Each structure stands twice: as C-alpha cells, then as structure tokens.
C-alpha cells in the first residue's frame, strides 16, 4: 500500500529528471499509473464489502508516535477509487488538453504528486501522517492552481487557496495534537474506542473546532469558500480533479472519518447543519449570477459540499447513506461538467455561457456527456443523481429539529443546482450555433472519451444501483459507524413525500432554467454586493492587517539607533525595578561597608566631575581630555583597592584610546547639539533611572554574604603549583589562560578589522558584489 502511495511521488521525482522526454507523445503513458492504481484498489472491493478492514503499518517517527499506518476501509476505498479513477481520466484528458505545452512534464509532476498526497490522506490511519498528506495536497494544489504562473490573477488565486487551506492545515495540526494529548495516541482506529473519553474531555469543543476549521477551509464552506471560485484560474483538468473528487472532498473525508470519533454530539451536529446549510443555499444562489461556466460550476460545487456537510451534520443513518451516494453522484457529474467545460473552452476559446449555444452540431459526444451529467445533477431519473436526491430528502425529513426550514433549504438548493447543471451541461449545446463558432474543430477522443465514460457511469449506476451498493456505499456507512445492512438502494421507492419534493424540484428547476438566463447584467448586480462578501471582507482585513504590520514594524524598527537603545534600556529598567521594588527585600547593609577617606572622596569627586564634563562639554577634544581625567581617577581607585595590575592596564589603555581618538578626531566634524531640550531631559531621566537601578542593585548585592573560595584556591596554589607570585597574572596566564588567549585573539581580530576598514577600498565596479 505504501508503494501505491509512493508511486505518485516517485513518478513526480522521476519527471524532474526526465521531463523533456514526457513532454511529447508519451504523456498519455503517465495515465497508466492511476489506471493501475485504480485496478489495484478495485481488487480490494470484495474484501472490503465483506466487512474486512485492511491495515498496514510502517515505522516512521516513533519518537513522535507518528507512523505510516494505512487503513483501507469502505470510506477510504471509495475515495481511493475516485482519486485513481477520475485521476486516470484526467491524466488522459490532459494529454490532449495540454498537448505540446512547454511545461507539460511539470504539470504531470504536480498532478501525480497531488494524487499521491490525496491517496495518502485518505488511507492514513495516523492523524499526524494524515496531516502530512493533507498539507501536501495543499502545497501541490498551490502549484496546480498557480500553474499559469505568469498570470498575476493565477498567482493570486494560488496564494489565496494556499492561505485558506494552509490556515486550515494548522488548525488540523492543532486538532490532531490536541486529540493526541487527550487520547495518548494519534491512531484514529484507537481513538474510535475512546469516543466517550473524548466527548467527556474539557477539550472536546476545542478539538472539534480545530477539526471543523480544517474541514471547512478545505471543503470551501462558508465563509471560507471564496478560494474555490478563485482556483478556477487553474487549467481545467486541475479544476476537474480538485473540485469533483479530490481536494475539496478531503474536508468531507475528514468530517466523515471523525464522525465515529467526535460525532453524535450536539455541538458537532448543529454546527455542521448550520454551516453546511448556509453554504449550500448561499452558493446555490450565487450560481444564478455567474456567466463563466467555471464560475457556475465552482459555486455549484461549493453548494454540493455544503449539502454533504449538512448531511454529515444530520448524523442519521439515512443521512450517511445519502452522503455516500451523493459523493459518488457529485464526483461523476461534476467531473463530467468540468471536462465538458474544458473542452468547450479549449475548442472555442470562451467559457462565457451567454455566448455559447448550439455546440452539439460540432461536438455531439460532448453534448451527450454534458446533457447526461446535467440530468444526473438535476436528479432526474434514471440517473444516479435521482437516487442521491431522494436519499437526501429522505434524510432531511427525518431531521430532529426545524425540519421544515431544513427541507425548504435543501429543496431550494437542489432547484438552483438543477438550474446550474442545466446551464453548464445543456445550454452550450442547445439552440443555434453562433456564427463565430462555425469553424470550431471537434475535440479528439482523448478529450471527450473521459467525459462520456463518467456521464455514462452516472446513468449506469442509476439504473443498477446494486453495483455500488454493497461495493461502495454500505462499507462507507459502516465506516461511519452506522449499521447499513438492511438498506437497499433503488430508483423506485413508491409514491411518498420525497417523490413529491423531487417532482417539485425538477419542475421548478426546469421552469427556472427557461425563465432565468445567465447574463452579464445579473453578474454585475451581484458584483455590487461584493463588498460585503466574506472574500472582500477578508481582503479588506488582509489589507488592514498589512497596514498594521507595516505600522507595527516601523514603530519598532524606525531607523533611529537612539530609539532602539531607549527601548532596550527602558525594558531593562522596568523589569529590574519591578522585581526590585516588588519584592520586600530591598536591603542595603551599611555595617559591612568601609568609611570614606578624604582622598577617596576627592578621587570620586574628580571622577564624577570628569564624567559630567565629558557629557556636557561642547568640545570634542575637551571631552577626550576629560575622559583622561576619568581614566586617571579609575586608575587611582584600582591602586587604592589593591589592584596595581588593573591600574596599569587601565591607564595604558586609556592613553591608547586617547591617541586613537586624537588621530581620528580632526577628521570628524565638530560636536553639534542635535537634540532638543525636551529630548535631552527625557534621555536624562531614562539614563538616571538606569544609573539608579544599577547603583541600588550593587548595594543590595554587597549586603549579601561573600564567598572567596575561588580566590583562596588561586592564592594557595599560585606559587606552589603555578610558580608565580602575582596571583592576577597567574590567573591570566595559567588558571584562566584561555580567557587571555581569546582576549588577544579579540585584539588581533579588531586590528584586522581596522586594517580592512581603512585600507580596503572597493573599486566602484565591485560595489555590492
């Protein structure tokens, strides 16, 4: 099974090196991979339908409790088959659709990467590895959506999609880790047995929210839906693949996968019903206002996803049944419609539905596929669409609360979706062929073949629902934790309310199709409301966030060194004084301190005078000289307090500094007083605060007991072990010789730096090399 998943990755990698080769006629060969995988997964049908679950575990990062454990049950089998099956058709379709494209190899690379990631996602039993694949689908879809990367709109859409789904990804990660924390495992199978523990946990809601955000972003639920219409910038095979069967279904998959773990709780069900309900109605209405075929399909896709979420939210056996059938229904008709749209676009160069008509004359097979799909979408018997719709109505009528509202919402949605399906699948082919399209060529088989296959399957499954019943639908339902054994799929259930609703749907929908034509006018009208759509709210939010970011960044990083210093010092002063004055132990012990003698006082005075003079003098040279005074005073303090070595060094260094200063000083400009009075006072206060804090700190430390263990050891051993009598020097060259070694290295480096700074003049040609 690992091989099955890795195959896609390996093929993508393989393409990196052999890309040129595959740009040619051999492209079609790549379709063998999904085809082979489809056959492989189909071979599991008997086992799965008999209730078996196939698992396989590979070690990966046990340190994290992360392994590559795969589980093939009804749910994952259904998705695997869709992924590989539709994948096969899309791969084939692409060979024609993008024939001769410069970057065809890349496209296949992304596509197989994506397929592999999807497979991994639906097969993973480990939540972390599920997340890994989840992110891989996001990133590979980023590349697919942005495939026409020189087009700014394309790039923007790819970024938006990645932004939204990426955000959801992090939410999934958080959710996964939270669940991991609660249960102590990342294995979904093991979590199944801990349903109660999870539901009882205080973190239950949080975990569910994380999972929801992940699922809703991926499955384009309101208000995260808008990335999906944007993603239509991608080449049509991408749209087909991503939006009918794979990417957006990942969110649905996630919800279904977690239904037995997190479901059956009020929060879970209610939220899903509300979000799914709003989404399905909202975007179904939106389809009315689109003229771009792909726009229509995009919104109808979102609406369909809404229905699925809604069904999962209903949480009943019926609903699960409906959902699993509807997944198949939707995959088949939506893929077909996308393919058809792609063909139209490819041949005529437009997707504007207001301009398209009568194309059946040129591309009959395509028209058949389109019409079949439209019928299935409309839920007209004997397509499988009808089956799906019936089940959906059935499930919603059994909703526990607000049944009427729910039923009205679902019926309304279905009506609008019928309209959308007709507009996409029927309108371009009916009526009179417009003049400009007279010379349009018929597509080749590679293009219309896949569409026909899918459309016919929709019909076939409708007529013979038992094909999918035990093989696909029931295992899915049981994977969702419901017992589906007594259910039977059938077109005919007798006259009942559901049938009545169906009839209403079809009649009203068809009437709508004849009375409301998609038009630019309508599109403009909705455009005026665009400013309150989640998309523009988010865009505005993003804009303001960017403005805020720039503001925040510039407030701190404002270019003025003194502000940087101020911030750091202020931070220090505030924190230290908070602790110092916040604790009751500001103790200054005077008894241990020595007295001040006259000469010490004088030395201190001249030191202070020197410092003040340095700070306030208007002459640079005087400041340097005053630092000489400070240096001398410090030197004397070192002498008084038993540090002759220090005194020597301090004085020599001071002198050298003076020399350095003097050597560069006359090249430097005169002192100018650049800051105003207010600023000087402010800086003065801050500096004084720092000085006070340091001073108090020193006094407090002095009140603490001392420990002279270190000095005593050195003193004892200086002569006996290290053969020296000047203990300071012995420390420097022996006890702590490495310090000294590095100190002279610092000097050497500084000298090299000075040498380079002054001697190295880059030729103007070498600037910024």
């Amino acid at each position: 099974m690992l091989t099955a998943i890795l195959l896609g990755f390996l093929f993508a990698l393989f393409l990196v090196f052999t890309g040129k080769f595959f740009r040619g006629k051999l492209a079609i060969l790549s379709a063998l991979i999904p085809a082979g995988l489809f056959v492989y997964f189909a071979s599991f049908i008997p086992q799965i339908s008999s209730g078996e679950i196939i698992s396989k575990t590979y070690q990966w990062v046990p340190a994290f409790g992360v392994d590559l454990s795969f589980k093939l049950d009804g749910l994952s089998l259904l998705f695997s088959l869709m992924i590989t099956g539709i994948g096969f058709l899309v791969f084939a379709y692409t060979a024609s659709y993008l024939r001769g494209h410069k970057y065809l190899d890349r496209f296949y690379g992304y596509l197989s990467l994506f397929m592999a990631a999807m497979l991994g996602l639906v097969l993973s039993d480990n939540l972390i590895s599920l997340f890994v694949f989840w992110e891989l689908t996001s990133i590979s879809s980023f590349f697919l959506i942005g495939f026409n990367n020189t087009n700014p709109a394309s790039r923007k859409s790819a970024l938006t999609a990645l932004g939204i789904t990426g955000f959801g990804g992090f939410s999934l990660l958080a959710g996964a880790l939270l669940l991991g924390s609660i249960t102590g495992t990342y294995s979904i199978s093991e979590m199944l047995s801990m349903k109660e523990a999870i539901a009882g946990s205080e973190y239950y809601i949080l975990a569910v929210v994380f999972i929801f955000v992940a699922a809703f972003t991926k499955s384009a639920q309101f208000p995260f839906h808008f990335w999906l219409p944007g993603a239509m910038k991608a080449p049509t095979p991408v749209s087909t693949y991503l939006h009918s069967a794979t990417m957006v279904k990942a969110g649905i998959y996630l919800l279904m996968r977690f239904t037995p773990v997190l479901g059956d709780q009020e929060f879970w069900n209610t939220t899903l019903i509300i979000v799914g309900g709003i989404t399905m109605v909202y975007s179904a209405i939106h389809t009315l206002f689109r003229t771009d075929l792909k726009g229509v399909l995009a919104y109808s896709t979102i609406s369909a996803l809404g229905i699925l979420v809604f069904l999962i939210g209903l949480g009943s056996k019926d609903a699960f049944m409906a959902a699993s059938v509807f997944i198949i229904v939707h995959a088949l008709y939506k893929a077909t419609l996308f393919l058809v749209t792609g063909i139209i676009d490819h041949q005529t160069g437009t997707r504007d539905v207001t301009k398209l008509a009568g194309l059946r004359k040129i591309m009959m097979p395509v028209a058949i596929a389109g019409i079949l799909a439209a019928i299935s979408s409309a839920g007209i018997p004997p397509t499988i669409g009808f089956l799906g719709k019936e089940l959906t109505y059935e499930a919603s009528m059994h909703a526990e609360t607000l049944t009427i509202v729910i039923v009205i919402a679902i019926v309304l949605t279905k009506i609008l979706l019928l309209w959308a399906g007709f507009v996409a699948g029927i309108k371009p082919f009916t009526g009179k062929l417009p003049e400009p399209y007279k010379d349009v060529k018929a597509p080749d088989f590679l293009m219309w073949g896949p569409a026909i296959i899918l459309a016919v399957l929709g019909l076939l499954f409708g007529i013979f629902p038992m094909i999918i019943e035990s093989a696909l639908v029931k295992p899915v339902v049981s994977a969702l934790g419901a017992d589906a054994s007594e259910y039977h799929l059938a077109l005919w259930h007798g006259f009942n309310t559901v049938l009545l609703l169906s009839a209403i749907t079809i009649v009203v929908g068809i009437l709508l199709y004849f009375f409301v034509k998609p038009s630019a006018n309508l599109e403009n009208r909705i455009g005026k409301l665009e400013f309150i759509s989640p998309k523009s709210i988010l865009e505005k939010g993003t804009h303001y966030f960017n403005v805020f970011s720039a503001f925040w960044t510039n407030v701190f990083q404002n270019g003025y060194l003194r502000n940087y210093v101020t911030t750091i010092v202020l931070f220090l002063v505030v924190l230290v004084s908070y602790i110092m004055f916040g604790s009751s132990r500001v103790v200054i012990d005077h008894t241990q301190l020595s007295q001040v003698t006259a000469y010490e006082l004088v030395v201190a005075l001249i030191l202070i005078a020197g410092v003040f003079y340095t700070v306030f003098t208007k002459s640079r040279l005087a400041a340097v000289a005053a630092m000489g005074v400070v240096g001398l005073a410090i030197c004397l303090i070192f002498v008084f307090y038993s540090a002759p070595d220090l005194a020597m060094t301090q004085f020599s260094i001071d002198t050298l500094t003076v020399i350095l200063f003097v050597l560069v000083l006359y090249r430097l400009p005169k002192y100018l007083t650049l800051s105003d009075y207010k600023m000087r006072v402010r800086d003065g206060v801050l500096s004084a605060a720092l000085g006070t804090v340091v001073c108090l700190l020193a006094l407090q430390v002095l009140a603490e007991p001392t420990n002279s263990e270190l000095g005593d050891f050195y003193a004892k051993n200086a002569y006996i072990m290290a053969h020296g009598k000047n203990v300071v020097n012995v420390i420097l060259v022996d006890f702590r010789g490495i310090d000294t070694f590095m100190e002279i290295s610092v000097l050497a480096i500084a000298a090299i730096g000075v040498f380079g700074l002054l001697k190295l003049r880059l030729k103007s040609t070498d600037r910024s090399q």
Partner: protein
Amino acid sequence: MTLTDYLYYIILPVLAFSVLLIVYRFIKGPSIADKIIALDVLITTGIGIIGVYSIIHGRSTFLDTAMILALIAFLSTVAFSYYLEKRNRKK
C-alpha cells in the same frame, strides 16, 4: 603621631586638595592647552599620591603603577599636541 598617620591624615589630604585645584583649572580652561596641562599635572600628582600611598601600606608594588603612569602620560600629551598642530594646519 606615627609616620603612617602623618601621611594619612595630613599629606594625602593636602595632595587631594591639590588635585581639586588642578581639576578646577581643567574645567575652567580656558584654552585647550590649559586642560592638557592640567591633565598632565594631575597625572604627575597622581604619581606622588601613589608614592605616599605605597609608604602608608608598606607595599612597594604600587610604585610599578606609578612607573607606568610616568612613562605613558607623556604620550597622551604628545598626542594632544599632535592633534592641535594637525587641526590648525587643516584650517
């Protein structure tokens, strides 16, 4: 009064007082040359203080510092003069 007390209570304060006078001149200037002289004299006086201090504590080690002071103080005066000459020449 012992020698140490004499040095401690009379000599050192007098020297310290001298230091104050010198610093007064340093701050007052008026010309930069005055400051440089004051610094020079200050260092010389510092040598004297160290000498007295070494007698008080009976540790001749401090004289080593005085030695360095005597040697090196000269160099900063040279540097200042060098600066004054360069600066004037530049004008």
